[in-house]
């Protein structure tokens, strides 16, 4: 078990080396380019979906996190990488769910590929140097009543307080990101 844990920690260390030297190149729902600079601030990037029931179960929790941590200086970026969900779908979904934040499209899932995001919802938190400080799930249960661990909240609390993140990684769970088919 110890060796497995060591392997996971080694993977986490590798992940930390993936820095955000380049800004995130996203697309607004109006088709406009959106460039998100990650260095100089703490940024939480959420990979979300319109149709995934797991991601949708977290809509309320994402709104709460945004409401709680945005005023504490954390930037939030919501990304839809699913090739099967259009910009119009994203706009309607945001309106239907009362999002007070924008969700950007990740055309050809380039951002998801760059950071190896696999599912929705999945979160990456970047520190002020642009390094990944946390990646994984929001919490450990799709059903809010059965949550026992909140690794994202723990990470954000630590970063707001200027402390070390207690756990740099957790296993994200949800629907697989529907990637665009590569041209052969």
């Amino acid at each position: 078990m110890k060796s497995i844990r060591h392997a996971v920690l080694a993977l986490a260390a590798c992940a930390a080396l993936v820095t955000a030297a380049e800004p995130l190149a996203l697309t607004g729902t109006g088709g406009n380019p959106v460039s998100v600079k990650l260095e100089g601030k703490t940024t939480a990037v959420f990979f979300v979906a319109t149709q995934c029931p797991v991601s949708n179960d977290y809509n309320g929790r994402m709104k709460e996190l945004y409401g709680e941590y945005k005023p504490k200086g954390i930037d939030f970026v919501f990304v839809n990488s699913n090739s099967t969900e259009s910009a119009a779908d994203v706009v309607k979904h945001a309106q239907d769910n009362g999002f007070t934040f924008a969700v950007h499209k990740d055309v050809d899932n380039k951002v998801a590929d760059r950071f190896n995001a696999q599912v929705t919802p999945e979160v990456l938190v970047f520190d002020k140097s642009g390094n990944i400080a946390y990646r994984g799930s929001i919490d450990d249960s799709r059903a809010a009543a059965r949550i026992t661990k909140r690794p994202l909240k723990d990470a954000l609390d630590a970063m707001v307080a200027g402390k070390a993140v207690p756990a740099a990684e957790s296993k994200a769970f949800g629907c697989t990101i529907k990637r665009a088919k590569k041209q052969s």
Partner: protein
Amino acid sequence: MKTLAVLIVAAGAMLAADLKPVSEATYPKMVAASKGKVVLVNFWATYCVPCRKEMPALVSMHQRLSAKGFQLITVSADEIEQEKDAAAFLDKTRVPAPVYIKRAKDDDNFINSLDPKWSGALPATFLYDRQGRKVKSYFGEVDLKLLEADVLKLI
């Protein structure tokens, strides 16, 4: 006519999938219970479109190879709220028993105990030889030809 109706109801009842809980503690016992067979454990969920898409092919493989000592075991990653839907899908797709539902004490530990390289994304499939040793992990939708070739090597 009454007897026929009773028989139909009884047959329907027999078809209802009996999802047994499996945790990180009981998973090794679950695999060991099929010792002597080549075992394929498939993790899926009702919300996972590629999982639902590949399931009929896995069932077909079980039907063709079970006489040669092949056993398909499915583990649903659904929550309690979706358990009925999961059972309905298993019935509709005629997925053979045993069928399980993941009830992990700690999801990260469960996932890491199966394969630390597994992100937890579904579907995920694990192949075990007749001695119950894990031979291969498949993440995402499986290449069915490759999977069947791997299974046949072990049979």
